[in-house]
Structure formats: structure tokens, C-alpha cells
């Protein structure tokens, strides 16, 4: 690079970019737009996008986590078994256990008892257990207790051995079991 060009450049810059006369200091814009009330408000608003990014990020992460959990649950959940031919639901003509067992989605709910009907009364007790309102059919099994020793009629307790929520109310007095 020639020195001649440097000298020419230095001399020409003075005329190409002349120094301006100094305007009154009062025209300085920073004096009018200092960090007053509005300046502070603007500064606060400048933080708003950062806060927004953080909030959106957190919500997005939560949604992703929820979606992932739901997907894992769907993938790993056991397939709903079809009722076996000996299953009361099949006997009742229901294609699946769910169709007969009401709103309970879990196939395990009827594991402990018969579905939809109380167990037959045993001799000696009427097993007149009543269903509590929450004790939906199929949600538990209920047994009237066997009657007390022969000759003594005692009330079947009718205590529903419920794996659901309800407990049966007190049963009617049991009939004495005939002694041989």
C-alpha cells in the first residue's frame, strides 16, 4: 500500500468529513431522555421478553414431560384381556369385561369377586348384604357370613368384603341352620 495514498487519505478525510461546530449543550438528547420514570419503565419492559421466554420454556417443558409420560403409559400399559369363556362377563354376552363391569376401567377390579352379582347366600345366612350406593356392581365381592352355630340364629353381618369403596350394611338375621 503506497504511503502516498495514506497521506492523500489523511488530508482528504478532513475535507470529506469536516468537523462540525459544537451545538448548544442543551440540545443533547441524553439530557432529555435520561433514565427517568419512562426510562425505568422501558428498562423494565426490556426484561419482559426474557421473563416471557422463561415462562414459555417452563410451560413447554411441562407439556413435553406430560406428553412423554402419557406416551410411556400408553405403551407400557397391559392389553385389556378378553374375558374367558368361563368368565361371567362372557356368559352374559359381554364382549369384554369392561362392558359389563361398569365404569371401572381396570380389569383387576373384579378379581376378588363375582361380577355384577352378589355371591349366592350360603346356607344359614341370608347374606342380605346391601350395596352401598358407591358399591357398584362388580366393584367388590360381598359375602354373607355363615351363620352362627346351629340353633342360634344370629344376624349375618353382611359385611361386604369390598375391594371397592362401599361396605355392605348389616344383613338380615340369619336363619338357623337346621341341625341334622
Amino acid at each position, binding site marked *: 500500500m503506497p504511503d502516498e495514498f495514506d*497521506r492523500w*487519505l489523511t488530508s482528504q478525510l478532513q475535507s*470529506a468529513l469536516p*468537523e462540525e461546530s459544537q451545538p448548544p449543550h442543551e440540545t443533547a438528547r441524553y439530557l432529555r431522555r435520561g*433514565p427517568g420514570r419512562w426510562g425505568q419503565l422501558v428498562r423494565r419492559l426490556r426484561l419482559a421478553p426474557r421473563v416471557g421466554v422463561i415462562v414459555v420454556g417452563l410451560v413447554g417443558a411441562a407439556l413435553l414431560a406430560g406428553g412423554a409420560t402419557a406416551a410411556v403409559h400408553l405403551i407400557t400399559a397391559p392389553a385389556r384381556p378378553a374375558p374367558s369363556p368361563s368368565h361371567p362377563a362372557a356368559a352374559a354376552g359381554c364382549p369384554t369385561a369392561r362392558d359389563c363391569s361398569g365404569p371401572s376401567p381396570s380389569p383387576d377390579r373384579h378379581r376378588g369377586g363375582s361380577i355384577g352379582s352378589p355371591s349366592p347366600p350360603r346356607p344359614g345366612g341370608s347374606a342380605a348384604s346391601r350395596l352401598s350406593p358407591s358399591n357398584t356392581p362388580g366393584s367388590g365381592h360381598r359375602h354373607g357370613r355363615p351363620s352362627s352355630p346351629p340353633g342360634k340364629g344370629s344376624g349375618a353381618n353382611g359385611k361386604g368384603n369390598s375391594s371397592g369403596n362401599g361396605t355392605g350394611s348389616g344383613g338380615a338375621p340369619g336363619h338357623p341352620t337346621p341341625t341334622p
Partner: protein
Amino acid sequence: MAAEEYQPGSAADFDRLYRDERSRLLQTVRAIVGDDAEDCVQDAFVQAFRNWTSYRPEAPAAAWLHRIAINRAVSVRRRQKLRGVAESIRRLGRPESPPDPGNVATSLDLGRALRKLPPRQAAVIVLRHLHGYSNREIGFALGIPERTVASRLVAAKAKLMIELELDLATSTGRDSTPRQTPLGSESRTGQVQDA
């Protein structure tokens, strides 16, 4: 560059900085954005005033100010380009109007050639050849390492020479008056000599 000390956060010192550096800042920014320089410099001072308390005097205050102003000028230049593109699109299909005689170059226009350079290349030329900044100060003002300044300066001057030659060829195409230039004496149209 003035070797004066400024106390960060002091309003009186910032006023002094404004009086000392405004003119120089205006010259630098004018080489980048042209007529928008005054607005650009005022905005740069507003931004500098907001950050005045956090200024650390590890580099001269003038270089710090230049850094803010040059960054601002780069943004303004970008907007100017977008405006130019929008204007071109708006003019599509219309016959181009003849150039304003006031804008036609009648001499070697260094300012116009500078504005055709990339903003930081124009700034490095002005900082060195007009303000006489050192490499360290230029490096701080441009946000580049000190050892990069020399190569940046060489590249900027080479580009400027090309722009000046083009400018000269264009202007002498309209006006065949011989001119004395550093790019080649008595240049005429099509006779631009190598520097």
C-alpha cells in the same frame, strides 16, 4: 484521543465527554451512515448515558463511546439498506427518474466511497487516518483484537481504493476534466492507473 480521565457515573464528567467527543463521533458515524449521523450519535449518547455507571475505565472513554456509536451506525446502515430495497421494489415497472443534479459527483467523493465500504472498514479508516487512534483504541472501539486491526486496515484501504477507482471512472465518464488523484495522475475515463 483525549487522555482525560472521566469518573463513571458522574453527570458532570459525562457532559464533558459529550462536549469533547461529540464532534469526533459525528465524523466517524457520518462516514458510515451519511445524513443520519446526527440522530445516530444522539442515540449513542443516550445509550452511553444509561450505561455510564457501569462503564469501566479499562479503555479510553472515547473508544467506549465509539464502540457504542459504531454498533448503532451498523444498525442504522442495515435499516438504510432495507429502505433502499423497499424503494427499489416500489419503483418496479416505472421508468427510472433522472438523477438529481445535486447528487451527481463532480469530483472524487471520498465520503461516498467510504459509505460504500462495510461499516467497520469505514470506521477503521476514519479512526486511524482522521482521529489518529492507536491499534489498541481501534481494537476496543471495533470490538476486535488489537492484532487484527492492522490487517483490517489494509483490507479497508484496498477496498476503498477500488471504490474510489470505480467512483472516478463513473464521474469522469460524465466529466472529462483531468483530476489529480493519488490513484494515478491525470486520470481520465478508462485510464485509471494502478496506485
